[in-house]
């Protein structure tokens, strides 16, 4: 097997703080993103632990309702903007240049700024918890007029959203420029690994959706402080207008979280099934279709708000339509495994779990997308169960899969496979104990975002909380596995997984500080997927 060799004497790294603060290196910036995402995963996760502790029993136990609601709100904002998105961007940073034969991202300095915005933006956001009037407690969706009652935290919340938007848009522009301008000769678009494809399409979504959110929260700001009446019917506006603007951003945002996960799974499953990805072209087209459709389904989040019946029908049918390309993808993943010579290393386990559990989340989404039944499910724990299946056992499981898959490439050492499997099985069981009962709670009528509940919901809530604590503890094991792998272990070969396809396996493990200083000559074998 040929490797793309590298001169070690070129491998000079900047040292000390400069290396991290002034970086123009996609691998270092990727590492920063991933460490930041993991940190935020625990910050947001500890808020989830507070929520589950409060819900362990009916009645008020530990926190007052206002604080509970700000935990719900900030948990969501941190997990979405601080954990899942940065983890995805971190993987994109690390892997896209390696996968397409580029020396780095197209705009490396802007790349550094995209990252360094994040700690500052979250400083703004998290500081609100200590302000007069408490943190934002109106839900991450920030619906007016409720959110306008936020105290001193309000302008900090709005500006934190603007700030995070700046970071994401710069990151997205960078990824698009990298993929369209920096591919090695021979790496045509339809030869690109699917992870690269999903990230390009995600970047389009980011550029088109985030500015709309920025506009919407700006209107909230002027409604509160400058007397405008965008969301006030007394002045001719409409609070529902905010919901339209928010979800015009919010639904594409869901796919911003999910599409990179699709990309990861499409890399991992073929590697461990030792078969080419089934239906590569259809995967690309399905991803693009999902992205386009995601701009025409936003009002399915608002069925009960009083939309005209024609609108409800339109958004219901458009939502059903998304099941078609998603079905194509799930079919292709299963067909890739069909009659494959499968082995079940940790990345593969997480990816298979993703396929099954994301599909469960997809089906409950389909239920929620049907207007008449949504009137029962709306704002109940059924919704909470749905989006946690999609985001936690979906997106987060895929991210875990990606970390195990590429960790040897990053560190040069193999992780502890036995511990990895223990981490997987504990995560799988605990997350299902955590979220599966919430379907029943929702169907029985338990509303979301309320710290107390009727006695009839007590048993399922207790089970769910136990699952939650178990899941939270299990993730400490993940940190241990990653640290252990970073510090040493069995040396990893350049091709870590025998069945893995793609350019990243032709560079040494760990990947040198600079790769591809000149355009690599790609062979047919390197371009397989």
């Amino acid at each position: 097997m040929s490797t793309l060799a590298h001169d070690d004497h070129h491998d000079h790294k900047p040292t000390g703080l400069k290396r991290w603060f002034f970086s123009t290196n996609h691998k270092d910036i990727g590492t920063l993103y991933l460490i930041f995402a993991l940190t935020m995963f625990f910050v947001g996760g500890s808020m989830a632990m507070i929520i589950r502790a409060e819900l362990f029993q009916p009645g008020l136990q530990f926190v007052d309702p206002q604080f509970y609601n700000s935990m719900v709100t900030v948990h969501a904002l941190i997990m979405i903007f601080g954990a899942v998105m940065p983890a995805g961007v971190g993987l994109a940073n690390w892997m896209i240049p390696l996968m397409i034969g580029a020396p780095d991202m197209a705009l490396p300095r802007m790349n550094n700024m995209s990252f360094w915005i994040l700690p500052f933006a979250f400083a703004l956001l998290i500081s609100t918890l200590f302000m007069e009037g408490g943190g934002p407690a109106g839900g991450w969706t920030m619906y007016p007029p409720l959110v306008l009652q936020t105290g001193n935290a309000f302008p900090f919340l709005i500006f934190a959203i603007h700030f995070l938007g700046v970071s994401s848009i710069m990151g997205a522009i960078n990824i698009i420029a990298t993929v369209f301008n920096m591919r090695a000769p021979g790496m045509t678009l339809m030869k690109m690994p699917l992870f690269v494809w999903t990230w390009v399409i995600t970047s389009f979504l980011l550029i088109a959706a985030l500015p709309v959110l920025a506009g919407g929260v700006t209107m909230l700001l002027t409604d509160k402080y400058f007397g405008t009446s965008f969301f006030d019917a007394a002045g001719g506006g409409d609070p529902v207008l905010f919901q339209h603007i928010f979800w015009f951003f919010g639904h594409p945002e869901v796919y911003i979280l999910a599409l990179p996960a699709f990309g990861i799974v499409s890399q991992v499953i073929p590697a461990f099934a030792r078969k080419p990805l089934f239906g590569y072209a259809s995967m690309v087209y399905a991803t693009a279709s999902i992205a386009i459709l995601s701009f025409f389904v936003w009002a399915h989040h608002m069925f009960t708000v009083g939309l005209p019946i024609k609108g409800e029908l339109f958004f219901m049918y458009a939502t059903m339509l998304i099941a078609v390309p998603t079905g194509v993808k799930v079919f292709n993943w299963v067909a890739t495994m069909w009659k494959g010579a499968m082995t079940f290393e940790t990345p593969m386990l997480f990816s298979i779990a993703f396929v099954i559990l994301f599909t469960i989340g997809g089906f409950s989404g389909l239920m929620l997308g049907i207007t008449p039944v949504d009137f029962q499910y709306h704002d109940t724990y059924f919704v909470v169960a749905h989006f946690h299946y999609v985001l936690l056992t979906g997106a987060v499981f895929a991210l875990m899969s990606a970390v195990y898959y590429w960790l040897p490439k990053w560190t040069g050492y193999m992780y502890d496979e036995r511990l990895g499997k223990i981490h997987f099985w504990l995560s799988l069981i605990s997350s299902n104990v955590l979220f599966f009962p919430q379907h029943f709670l929702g169907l029985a009528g338990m509303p979301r975002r309320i710290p107390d509940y009727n006695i009839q919901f007590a048993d399922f809530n207790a089970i769910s909380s136990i699952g939650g604590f178990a899941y939270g503890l299990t993730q400490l094991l993940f940190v241990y596995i990653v640290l252990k792998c970073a510090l040493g272990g069995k040396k990893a070969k350049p091709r870590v997984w025998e069945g893995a396809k793609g350019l990243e396996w032709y560079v040494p493990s760990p990947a040198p500080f600079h790769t591809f200083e000149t355009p690599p000559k790609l062979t047919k074998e390197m371009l397989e997927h």
Partner: protein
Amino acid sequence: MASQEIYYVPEGSKWPIVGSLSLFITFMGGAMMFNNAPGALYVLVLGLAALVYMFAGWFADVISESLAGKYSKQVDVSFRMGMGWFILSEVMFFAAFFGALYYARVFSIPWLGGEGQGLHNGTHEFLWPAFQAMWPMNVMPDPSNYTQYKDTIPAFGIPAINTALLLTSGVTCTFAHWALKKEQRKSLCLWLAATVLLGFIFVGFQAQEYVHAYKDLDLTLNSGIYGSTFFMLTGFHGFHVTMGAVMLAVILFRSMKGHFSNKDHFAFEAVAWYWHFVDVVWLGLFIFVYWV
């Protein structure tokens, strides 16, 4: 697609983190202003000053690297893609406000006026039965909290002149580009100067229109959904024109110093694209905010 022998990756730079930090200080200062926190103004001014320092320093580095011939064709293409997609994000930002205008005119005001069935005319029936849908809407459903205005700004006064000014500036900008391509530096600078001047005259007229609206017409941000959409759309646009004119002025300065050749002048083109984008947004404003 890569076409050259060696890829270019820039040196590490302090500017990105200086930029993040200055944005942080600016946002913090702004948020403190809203909370009437002591010292807020100082924080805000410090942040804005740091932002200016960051932009000046970052661009100075990029310009000197560019003049030193460090940038390859590939880097140029990356810059072009970056600018193009940045402009698309700006388009989507304005789309949110145009969307709000459309929603108010097509949905919320007619519903408040009693159109539609079931829930939609409920607000009309139970809260404000006297309210009648109209556009421009100068009687609010609940007038008590809002400033009623005497009149709106007619399209065929200053706004029409401003349309002519901006469209002309687009033409002069293109003339400047043609001069640049023919390497006629003097003509380039003159046309650019004309573009900058037209831009600032536009902003001046816009400011005068605002003064007129606030002082004579009682048309303010507080004038219901009409005032909200009017000032937010024209205000953000005016801010973008100002930024664009400042960028053009920088390009004028660089043109005078002879930074651009007929082959290599991406900075000029980027600003020209931005200027045309601002122009197109104005056409949307003129038609949907002032005219129809």
